[in-house]
């Protein structure tokens, strides 16, 4: 705690803590910089700090040694509890983003009982982007007004108290101390720098891009990043590792070891992941970026929050209206810099400079650490020593916004949207037409996480550069389950609409199609090799089936060498040759998934014939320009 959170603070205390946990390393004097983290393994530092928590040393504070107000001391602990709770809730929601079955009746609609996309619904940056792109606020996104209201009262508490991604960075900024993480270096690293403007420029650029028709800001929204990285990379990777470990445990052949391994697997499958391993298209890229961003905390504490986070910038703009804020009494400041040691937002809490309200995460560490009577948080503070608006030049802000606005048309001169739509861009069922889809999809990966068949994947460049990490169905990995509508159920922005089973399967109406299946007759067993098969027909879920078979008796050569001078031995075999009826095919991809031709399936789905588009069609009867898209 000593590094970033100041409750047990001051040199004397640190020495006492170090002495209790590791007597050999105890500093002999009081000149050690306050709250310096231990060298070596982070876990050693953790242990030492845990020791300090259990056995707090005598509280002697630097300078005048005035204790912080009791309210502030309590609030700092409340903040830690709220942070842990919000991160826990976020992870719990993420673990629950998937269908694990229930005892509901067979007729009950399969929906998730919890609002697992809740953190995204409360995200004002998502709300603002989609408002600018679609001119509407979709359903639950109205909750984001709540976080905005909170910001108007108490500033960026979302960043310091609620944001699960922020809490991760707070945590890693604490356990990843580097040479910048100690004493004077840490003080320097926690001062306000010009690089913190970058997030505002990013935010303006993303808002302008939304106005231009694409909510690419989701690439940088912290909640989207957290869902995407943890859901698509961290959880599957952890599952893979555990499966290797329990698999080798099962190899031992010892019954008790196998039992423990099985029970571990069962427990994790029922709580954290699913019963099968999930794989995500190019998830390595998502995972590496996540690890890299977390690792940046080693060099610049809370690098993400201070420099890149567009949601933080968005809230920072509104923090100027906050009723709650800081007052400073510069005269009393002794320049001990304890406030800076613990500062999260790099918002200049120290004496002699103005406090930066737009940067402050409202963590209250500075007042808690201050041994003099300099820093006071209160409602309706005087703003003599505060700057409330972002320190961004108007010209640069305008220029970056303009850059954001032109990036979308520029991206679209590449062929994939207008001229040469990629056949692999199969959007999940219920998706709106591609242009509106790009106006709505924030790449949060909720749909990919929830899909029970691992069918939905983050696109790499299949959907163009502006379609990076938007959802596409890759049927070879998983097909779209016929009666499942969970992707639309969790979509926070309506890129995938909340459809019913009746709409999807077409009960009393036309079903929703996401593409069409095609046979590669050169690879299909009954077509080219006189071998019976039709697994595709068995799995075709529509009724009547979109795959129908033609019964034929065809010759097949016996797999033996013919006698010299004789014709090869032939026999007649009866096979069923599959065909697709494009009027019935819904593009679910079950056929492609189960085709036994392993490497490149003999039946595959492409996006053509998708219900949402009136141009990407095959059949004349589906070509209807009077139909709303």
């Amino acid at each position, binding site marked *: 705690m000593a590094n970033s959170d100041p409750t047990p603070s001051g040199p004397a205390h640190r020495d006492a803590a170090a002495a209790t946990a590791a007597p050999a390393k105890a500093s002999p004097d009081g000149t050690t910089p306050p709250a310096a983290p231990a060298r070596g393994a982070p876990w050693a530092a953790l242990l030492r700090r845990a020791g300090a928590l259990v056995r707090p040393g005598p509280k002697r504070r630097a300078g005048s040694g005035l204790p912080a107000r009791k309210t502030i001391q309590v609030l700092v602990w409340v903040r830690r509890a709220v942070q842990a709770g919000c991160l826990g809730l976020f992870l719990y929601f993420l673990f629950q983003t998937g269908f694990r079955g229930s005892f509901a009746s067979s007729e009950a609609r399969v929906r998730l009982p919890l609002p697992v996309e809740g953190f995204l619904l409360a995200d004002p940056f998502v709300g603002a982007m989609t408002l600018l792109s679609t001119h509407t606020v979709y359903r639950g996104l109205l909750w984001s007004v709540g976080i905005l209201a909170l910001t108007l009262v108490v500033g960026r508490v979302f960043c310091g108290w609620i944001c699960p991604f922020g809490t991760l960075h707070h945590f890693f900024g604490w356990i990843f101390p580097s040479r910048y993480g100690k004493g004077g270096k840490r003080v320097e690293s926690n001062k306000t720098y010009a690089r913190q403007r970058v997030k505002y420029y990013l935010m303006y650029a993303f808002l302008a891009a939304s106005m231009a028709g694409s909510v690419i800001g989701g690439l940088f929204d912290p909640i989207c990043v957290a869902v995407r990285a943890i859901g698509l990379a961290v959880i599957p990777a952890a599952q893979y590792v555990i499966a290797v470990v329990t*698999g080798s445990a099962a190899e031992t052949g010892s019954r008790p070891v196998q039992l423990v391994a099985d029970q571990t697997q069962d427990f994790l499958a029922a709580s954290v992941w699913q019963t099968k391993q999930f794989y995500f298209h190019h998830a390595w890229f998502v995972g590496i970026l996540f690890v890299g961003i977390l690792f940046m905390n080693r060099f610049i504490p809370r690098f993400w929050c201070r420099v890149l986070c567009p949601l933080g910038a968005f809230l920072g703009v509104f923090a100027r209206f906050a009723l709650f804020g800081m007052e400073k009494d510069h005269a009393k400041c002794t320049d001990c810099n304890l406030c800076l040691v613990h500062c999260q937002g790099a918002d200049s809490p120290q004496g002699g400079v103005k406090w930066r309200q737009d940067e402050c995460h409202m963590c209250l560490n500075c007042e808690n650490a201050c041994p003099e009577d300099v820093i006071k948080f209160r409602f309706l503070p005087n703003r003599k020593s505060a700057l409330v608006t972002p320190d961004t030049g108007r010209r640069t802000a305008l220029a970056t916004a303009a850059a954001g606005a032109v990036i979308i048309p520029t991206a679209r001169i590449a062929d994939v949207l207008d001229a040469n739509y990629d056949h692999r861009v199969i959007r999940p069922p219920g998706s709106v037409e591609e242009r509106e889809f790009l106006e709505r999809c924030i790449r949060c990966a909720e749909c990919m996480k929830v899909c029970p068949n691992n069918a939905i994947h983050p696109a790499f460049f299949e959907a163009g550069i502006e379609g990076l990490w938007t959802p596409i169905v890759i049927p070879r990995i998983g097909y779209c389950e016929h009666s499942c509508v969970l992707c639309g159920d969790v979509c926070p922005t309506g890129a995938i609409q909340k459809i019913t089973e009746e709409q999807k399967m077409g009960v009393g109406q036309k079903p929703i199609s996401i593409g069409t299946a095609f046979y590669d007759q050169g690879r299909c067993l009954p077509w080219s090799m006189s071998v019976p098969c039709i697994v595709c027909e068995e799995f075709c879920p529509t*009724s009547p089936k979109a795959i129908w078979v033609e019964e034929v008796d065809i010759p097949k050569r016996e797999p033996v060498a013919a006698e010299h001078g004789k014709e090869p031995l032939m026999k007649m075999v009866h096979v069923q040759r599959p065909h697709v009826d494009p009027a019935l095919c819904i593009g679910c991809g079950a056929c492609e998934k189960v085709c036994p031709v392993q490497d490149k399936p003999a039946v595959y789905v492409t996006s053509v014939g998708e219900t949402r588009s009136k141009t990407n069609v095959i059949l004349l009867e589906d070509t209807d320009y009077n139909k709303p898209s």
Partner: protein
Amino acid sequence: MSDISRREVLRRLGAAGLVLGGAAGVGAARWDRGGSTATAAERQQTRDYRLRDAPAGLPELVVARAGAEALAGGAPDPAALVRKAVDALGGMRRFISRGDVVVVKPNIGWDRTPIHAANTNPKVVAEVVRLAYDAGAKSVIVTDASCNEPNRCFQRSGIWKAAYDVGAEVVIPAAHRFRGMRLKGEVLDDWPVYTPLVNADKVINVPIAKHHNLSKYTAAMKNWYGALGGRRNRLHQNIDVSIADLATFIQPTLTIVDAIRVLMRNGPQGGNVADAKDMHTIIATTDQVAADAYGCQLIGRKPEEIPYLKMGHERGLGTMHWQNLRLAEV
């Protein structure tokens, strides 16, 4: 430049020697000499759960049909038909001993509701579980390796709730529950097998009778597809032999075919209520070949038309001439 000490020379030589010795030891121990080494032919691993005795007084094939009076009173209770059929075979106590771990294997292959008749009727499954517990089973496991997404199949088939309500342990198939086994069949050699089905004392097969576009009819013998993991989509290339291989691999204690509602076309998934027809029939027997030989007639097939029945008959797994068995219609 000073000479190093003798001690230092010995220490360095000793260290280098140890590393060399260790490397040589590991290399020798793990040396792959290449070339094909004859692996010992493994024994065929099969699971035969059949009873040895067959009391002469009892029927060998029981067909329970809802009578006209039951039909007149609305939809007849499938559970009553199951009870009647099992009682006619001599009661569940004949098959289950006290303390047995019993696995009930319904067909939970598809994400379909009971009305579509693609999965075994949940009431039939629940009644079999109840009878097994009444006969003294220690635990009854209900499980299947589904075709569609398992959680969805188990819930929407209604079997999860129905089986749980009567105390069964419902096991969802997960990757760690499959283990490679030597089936040594004609086409099935080394395959991942679903472990609950091979670690039981007794196994009761509770399939549903259905049309199947490739194998023509699916019920008892074809139900063992749900015992396999891996790439079972490849089995279709020789579906009849693979069914016979599987039926050789697992021979159940008892087979109870659910023909309460039968899928007549569009099999094995159906999807249209009109594809299925109410028949209010339960077939119970210890002979899985005879169960299918009798059952295929429900969808208008003859046993001779179905190659895997002939193979099962020739392999001695049972008889396709069900007429030769002691038949009881109740």
